[in-house]
């Protein structure tokens, strides 16, 4: 198969994730879109590991998986905190830091 197949699929997933981050208002949906982006990066790393016949890419992918798990935990805790304080998780209503 072509080496570009995995990379193009990862690019498509990345762009869909970026669209989700831009378009969504619900904070949980934005976190899901970020998961799409992180998974596309992992797919790229695995594809590079396959292309170079080296497992360094797989090791990096494992690191990314661990960091993504930590990110989701902290992110959802923050979303819960925002929901508890404001009874809403719409991101466009969070404007306290606006100057």
């Amino acid at each position, binding site marked *: *198969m*072509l*080496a*570009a*197949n*995995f990379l*193009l*699929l990862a*690019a*498509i997933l990345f*762009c*869909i*994730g*970026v*669209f*989700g981050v*831009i*378009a*969504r*208002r*619900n*904070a*949980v*949906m934005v976190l*899901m*879109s970020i*998961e*799409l982006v992180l*998974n596309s990066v*992992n*797919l790229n790393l695995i594809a590079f*590991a396959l*292309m170079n*016949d*080296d*497992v*360094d890419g*797989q*090791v990096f992918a*494992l*690191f990314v*998986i*661990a*960091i*993504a*798990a*930590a990110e*989701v*935990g*902290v992110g*959802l*805790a*923050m*979303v*819960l*905190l925002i*929901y*508890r304080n404001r009874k809403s*998780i719409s991101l*466009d209503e969070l404007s306290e830091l606006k100057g």
Partner: protein
Amino acid sequence: MTAVILAADGVNVAMNVGFGIIAAVMIYAALSVVSTKNVVHAALWLVLVLAGVAAQYILAAAEFVAVSQVMVYIGAVMVLFLFGIMLTRAQIGAEQGLNNKGWQLGIPVAVVLFGLLAFVVLDFTGTDTIEQLGLGGPTELTGVNNESTIEIADRVLFQYIAPFFGMTFVLLAAAIGAIVLARKD
């Protein structure tokens, strides 16, 4: 796009077909994640995307990463997401106002970004093909191709031991931080 995906170069047609089917399912599921009106449905579509990614890892001869993907993402992260959805939502069913007001702006951004990425990828790889699957052949001892898992363990515990310990501290800090943030007091 499909022409590129299905461009069988005579090396491994089954791999191409499997890749195409899984990729189509993944793209449809990912589009559903960012376009559905129901938050719970979005989480379930995301499960399909993550499972597709795991299948692609197996196709790319990365079994250990595929199993890690299934355990960490589909097992742990999705449970976290479902808890997050159910703790922050009042209603079950379709919901209004999930998108921003100017959400259409995301479409040209995504399309332009994909054009740029596709140009770079095609410029970088050209007509390179992946001919040999797997890192090393089957071992004599077990007859199973588990060389890459052994190699991953070697790399993580020798060459990348310092980032590995750093990652453990990041996970510890994230767990403690999540507890501190979400705790009621």
